[in-house]
């Protein structure tokens, strides 16, 4: 137990990094996921095809592999570098790219099923008053679609928070890696340390689940 108290600053720092990873990746994947969904329902076959290929590749590849590829492939082959000075910043952003790319595929699928729940009449009405495809999407369909899938989006966010631990594969000092280092350092206090980190993740994910559940009820479109 003393080990947990002693290492509390490190634990909090690790969770702060987890939160940063989750929030930034979440925002990027939300935007990119909606764009992908728009691509997949667009009138252009090129865009539909590209979106489908992207989603099928990203959803069927393990996240660990994606992060390893980002860490090693993007940096070395594509010369993507975020900080010439600080390796941890570099790794942070490389793993953010991997997490965002992966989560966006799931956001796309969720939003797309949301689009399918919007009644036909809405889109037909939009067309009949002369809105273009993009206007229909922006003004009529997406607002209703997103409000319909708030609960699944919350699930995706929770999964993202837990997926940030995979960044440990390229050495990002987030919660799981720090926990492992603490296991090495304090070999006798393994259970308290584990419970401490587990509590941290429960504190992160449980409120989000409840919040999104509440939000979903409040923002559900009354039909």
């Amino acid at each position, binding site marked *: 137990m003393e080990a947990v108290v002693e290492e509390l600053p490190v634990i909090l720092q690790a969770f702060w990094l987890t939160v940063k990873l989750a929030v930034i990746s979440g925002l990027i994947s939300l935007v990119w996921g909606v764009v992908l969904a728009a691509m997949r*329902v667009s*009138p*252009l*076959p*090129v865009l539909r095809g*590209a979106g489908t290929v992207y989603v*099928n*590749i990203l*959803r*069927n*590849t*393990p*996240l*660990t*592999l994606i992060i*390893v*590829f980002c860490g*090693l*492939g993007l940096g*070395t*082959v*594509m*010369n993507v570098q975020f900080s010439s000075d600080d390796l941890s910043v570099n790794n942070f952003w490389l793993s953010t790219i991997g997490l965002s790319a992966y989560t966006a595929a*799931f956001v796309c*699928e*969720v939003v*797309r*099923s*949301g689009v399918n*729940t919007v009644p036909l009449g809405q*889109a*037909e009405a939009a*067309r009949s008053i002369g809105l273009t495809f993009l206007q*229909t999407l922006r003004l009529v369909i997406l607002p209703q679609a997103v409000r*319909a899938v708030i609960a*699944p989006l919350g699930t*995706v966010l*929770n*999964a993202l928070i*837990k*997926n*940030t*631990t*995979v960044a*440990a*594969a390229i050495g990002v000092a987030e*919660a*799981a890696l720090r*926990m*492992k280092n603490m*296991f090495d350092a304090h*070999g006798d206090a*393994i*259970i308290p340390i*584990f419970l401490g*980190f*587990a509590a941290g*993740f*429960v504190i992160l994910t*449980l409120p989000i689940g409840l919040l999104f559940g509440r939000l979903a009820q409040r923002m559900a479109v009354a039909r």
Partner: protein
Amino acid sequence: MTQATVLYDAPGPRSRMRNNVLTLAFGVVLLLVAYVVWAKFDAKGQWDGKLWRPFIQADTWTELILPGLRNTLSAAAVAAVLALVFGAVFGIARLSDHRWVRVPAGVVVELFRAIPLLMLIFFAQYGGSLAGLIVTEFTAVVFGLTLYNGSVLAEIVRAGIRAVPRGQSEAGYATGLRKNQVMRLILLPQAVTAMLPAIISQLVVLLKDTALGFVVAYADLLNAGARVVPANFFNLIPSVIVVAALYIAINLALGYLATRLERRSRRSRKAPAAIAAPGIAGDEVAVAR
């Protein structure tokens, strides 16, 4: 003449021209992106035949890659069976009438759903040696996979059983069956068909999750692709790409199997609507790693 859908009209002549122009524009952009990627890879010599030739040699596959695949599949198979058992047990426990069964089961399921899989695996490794048990990487990976996916499956089972129309269980009770028998003889069989697509999706997630074993040096497919093959041939990027293609192929096949099963089950019986299909659901089916 292209199809009209809800979101856009069947294109008239001006739309068609605009669509063609846009298609060309986006097509060019995509090709440009592909070219840039290809060129950068080329600049680093990653398309060099020397790096890719090992993959047309049979013994690279039989000695280095396929053993990794075998380990991935075996871990997934064992974890799948255990997770299904765990999920069935705890899913049914959460529906119990007795609070002393329902509440602890609920706590366990929610707890293991909240803890990331990698942390469970680390804990299994270190905690096991603390308790003096033998914990191989295989055991640690299976332990984590079972608990995590088992909890998600418990939720699927619970949703599946609750989706069976109430009339069924009421009829069961009316003919004098006990709660246990109603569950076993009436609810579960009907629930299973409805749950099958969601269960298979979760098993696909389980298969992808085995790749986390890489971080604890479990000799799985990712380990073969990112450690063992490159140690022999120094072709890290090509190797990772080949292994990614393998994973995609396997998961696509499993996903296709899931859709086939769902279609068959929907045709064959008037079961309650499919539960928690990937996408709209309050569950983590197919969203995790």
